[in-house]
């Protein structure tokens, strides 16, 4: 095997040298700050070893925002290079690396952790649970994601990034065409974080099925929790296919097998099938939770129950089933034959039906509602036209014969950015604004948020609408430059301006967060939006055991019903006589250490250093055996402590 890194690249490339310097300076600053303010112990006790779903959710969200920045910088670099014809801002090799890391990071290391952040922050509070079903496993999921993302991100400065596209198709991604460690980084980073994703799917499926408060039947469950349930099922059935696709490609590259090679009977199309058997459900994995957010936000800020609750649930389930029958539409041009293409074309179009049902239900929820245009609501409202256009162009792409024209053109690029940004990113930002006070106890500043909203939204259309035209004019994806005189210059230049506007929008969000930490309105009620679901019955932020006593749920949107006087509001407050010792999981440093061991295995496989694999493997085995023999895993919070906390919050009854 031949994975000699281009060590020379370390110092000769100005961009990489710049990144090196930035990384070293940032690391030194963090170490200095932690040491100066004596925060190492705090970091370890409160964050690195935590099994609390709320803290894990916050860590996921911070990581997602950082990765949004990283992926966004990649995007701005690409748009800068494409702003005008014949630019040499980036060379072909760098451009390839950057579009690969942009796609990989945005999907796997931005959208996924953002989705998991909301899973963690919201679901236990919404169903009346004190944590997820497997808190220790939840910590493992997070740290595996974290070290997977870390592995992906260091590739740029150590040895070179992957450059075969985020889909990593063989034979280009095979050893013969992608020498060096870049492609290995991709495979290992996705594999390590993917294990964590499967574990998260198991965790939330069991949590939602088994840990709901008494009285909360499935038909009384909030729609966000329903979307998480549907998403968990998608994760469980989709991710193993990715695991296998990545593993077999890694075997090809490291052990010289012939799964996807051109020689000795290998079949590259097999990878593409396996990849998209995961990859198509994956886009629903990141969109369904956003749908859940919109259902919560639109209902709350229209002061109405969601229109057509049952059909909303039906639509989520239908999308998660039919979503598994559409993967071939990513490669209609493979030539699978008219019959196969027809099946997958129709299945793809069928998805538009449940999606359309959801869009109409959101509109009817707003209809005659008392609408409040708060920040989360603005993003939800902006989502609807954006996603409708993205969906319509999706149906255009689903027409198999026409797809031969659009395939791999900028038309496709515009389409999937419109659904992924207009759907997932808008949804995650809406969710972040909506649940921010529940996480941190203060609201994010409206004025700065509006600046962010308008910059990002206007920027979005300026950036991506010209790309539809570019696609129809023949511009294909993944080209690093183009000649003048094709008519592509003006749309490309406009698109780049849009990308910069979106970047300014993101900077406003950063400014908004920093500003609001100090000046943001404090949430003293725990219910700043006049919400409908259970999490708003708790103080902000919620105590670490969430519910001192578990309320009995007697209707859909029970907290809203209680506020309307239809149910007893006192049922949501703890009575002194009802408080019992609370059973909680103990913190553990092992998920963090276990994930470091996986990271060491990853480095070993990336560079073909067998001792690293052995050390990492033994570390993983040791951690798992220690866990198996560990019986002292939980503790009880004494009644006095619960009473003390609850009375300090002014919630204690009787």
């Amino acid at each position, binding site marked *: 095997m031949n994975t000699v890194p281009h060590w020379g690249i370390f110092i000769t490339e100005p961009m990489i040298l710049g990144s090196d310097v930035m990384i070293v300076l940032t690391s030194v600053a963090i170490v200095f700050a932690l040491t100066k303010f004596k925060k190492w112990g705090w970091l370890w006790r409160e964050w690195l070893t935590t099994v609390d779903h709320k803290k894990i959710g916050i860590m996921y969200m911070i990581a997602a925002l950082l990765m949004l920045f990283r992926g966004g910088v990649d995007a701005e670099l690409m748009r800068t290079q494409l702003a005008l014809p014949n630019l040499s801002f980036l060379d072909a090799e760098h451009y390839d690396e950057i579009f690969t890391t942009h796609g990989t990071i945005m999907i796997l290391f931005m959208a996924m952790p953002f989705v998991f952040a909301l899973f963690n922050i919201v679901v236990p509070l919404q169903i009346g649970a004190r944590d997820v079903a497997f808190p220790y496993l939840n910590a493992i999921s997070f740290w595996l994601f974290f070290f997977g993302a870390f592995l992906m991100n260091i590739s740029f400065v150590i040895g070179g990034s992957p450059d075969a596209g985020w889909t990593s198709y063989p034979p280009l991604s095979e050893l013969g065409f992608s020498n060096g460690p870049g492609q290995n980084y991709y495979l290992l980073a996705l594999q390590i974080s993917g294990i964590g994703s499967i574990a998260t799917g198991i*965790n939330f499926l069991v949590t939602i099925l*088994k840990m709901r408060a008494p009285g909360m039947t499935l038909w009384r469950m909030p729609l966000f929790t329903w979307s998480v349930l549907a998403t968990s099922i998608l994760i469980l059935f989709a991710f193993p296919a990715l695991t296998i696709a990545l593993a077999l490609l890694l075997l090809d590259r490291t052990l010289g097998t012939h*799964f996807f090679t051109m020689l*000795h*009977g290998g079949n590259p199309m097999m990878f593409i099938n396996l990849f998209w058997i995961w990859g198509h459900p994956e886009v629903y994995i990141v969109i369904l939770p956003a749908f859940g957010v919109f259902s919560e936000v639109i209902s709350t800020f229209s002061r109405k129950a969601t229109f057509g609750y049952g059909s909303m649930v039906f639509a989520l389930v239908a999308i998660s089933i039919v979503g598994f029958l559409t993967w071939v539409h990513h490669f209609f041009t493979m030539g699978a034959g008219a019959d196969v293409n027809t099946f997958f074309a129709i299945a793809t179009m069928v998805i538009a039906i449940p999606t359309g049902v959801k869009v109409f239900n959101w509109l009817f929820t707003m209809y005659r509602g008392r609408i409040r245009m708060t920040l989360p609501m603005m993003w939800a409202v902006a989502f609807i036209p954006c996603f409708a256009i993205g969906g319509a162009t999706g149906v255009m792409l689903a027409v198999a014969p026409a797809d031969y024209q659009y395939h791999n053109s900028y038309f496709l690029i515009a389409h999937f950015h419109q659904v992924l940004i207009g759907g997932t990113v808008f949804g995650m930002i809406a969710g972040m604004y909506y649940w921010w006070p529940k996480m941190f106890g203060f609201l994010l500043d409206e004025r700065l948020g509006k600046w962010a909203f308008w910059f990002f939204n206007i920027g979005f259309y300026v950036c991506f609408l010209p790309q539809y035209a570019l696609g129809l004019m023949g511009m294909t994806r993944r080209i690093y430059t183009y000649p003048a005189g094709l008519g592509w210059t003006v749309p490309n230049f406009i698109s780049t301006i849009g990308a910069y506007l979106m970047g300014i929008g993101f900077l406003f969000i950063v400014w908004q967060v920093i500003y609001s930490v100090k000046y943001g309105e404090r949430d003293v009620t725990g219910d700043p939006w006049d919400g409908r679901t259970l999490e708003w019955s708790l103080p902000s932020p919620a105590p670490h055991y969430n519910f001192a006593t578990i309320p009995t749920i007697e209707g859909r949107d029970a907290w809203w019903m209680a506020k309307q006087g239809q149910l007893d509001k006192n049922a949501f407050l703890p009575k002194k006589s009802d408080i019992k010792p609370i059973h909680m999981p103990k913190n553990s440093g092992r998920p963090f250490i276990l994930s470091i061991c996986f990271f060491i295995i990853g480095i070993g496989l990336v560079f073909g250093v067998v001792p690293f694999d052995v050390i990492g493997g033994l570390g993983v085995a040791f951690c798992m055996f220690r866990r198996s023999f560990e019986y002292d895993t939980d503790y009880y919070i004494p009644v006095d402590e619960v009473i003390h906390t609850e009375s300090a919050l002014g919630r204690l009854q009787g």
Partner: protein
Amino acid sequence: MTTLAHNNVEHHHGAGDHVHVDYPERPIEYQTQDGALKILGFWVFLATDLILFACLFATFIVLRTHTDGGPTGKELFDVPIFTAETLILLTSSFTGGLATFEMHRGHRNRVIGWLIITALLGLSFVGLEVNEFVHMAMEGATMQRSAFLSAFFTLVGTHGCHVSLGILWMTGIIIQLFQRGITPITARKVYIVNMYWHFLDVVWVFLFTIVYLMGVM
């Protein structure tokens, strides 16, 4: 983690561990809420593992004729060997079931005995498989030879790795049974490792049919 249960009952089992029991009326492995959650979680995990194997089977079926002029299954597979492997693994599933049976009757030593027999049968299965692999490699049928052999070794080897992990895991649980006896926690562990073991048996039935029987046909 545990949320609802407050009517905890102190149980005294085996070596005297204090285990909080939430549902005394249920079978022992389901008596703690944590145990019930973990068993359901493991069922879900097995579903994902099944999909993992399904993808490997799909890859094998696509590539099984891609022998690149090299050896075919018909030339390589040894009927007595893979029949013996099958019988050994099926028997080990039965002895694993007997361990669970004795666990419900509260006989710690018999549980340990049956688990040791199960693990030994698993070990002899792995031994036969390693022997088969080495033989094939000696004849030049390595996983680098053709796409068919890449798929064969990966599919069968993944199953073999699962069985090997199961043996290590079972050994850990046998030690815990020695230390702690049958408690709702160790019972849950015995139950789950047996679920895993039976699952591997089911996968093997498909391997036996699709890889070996259809290979020698």
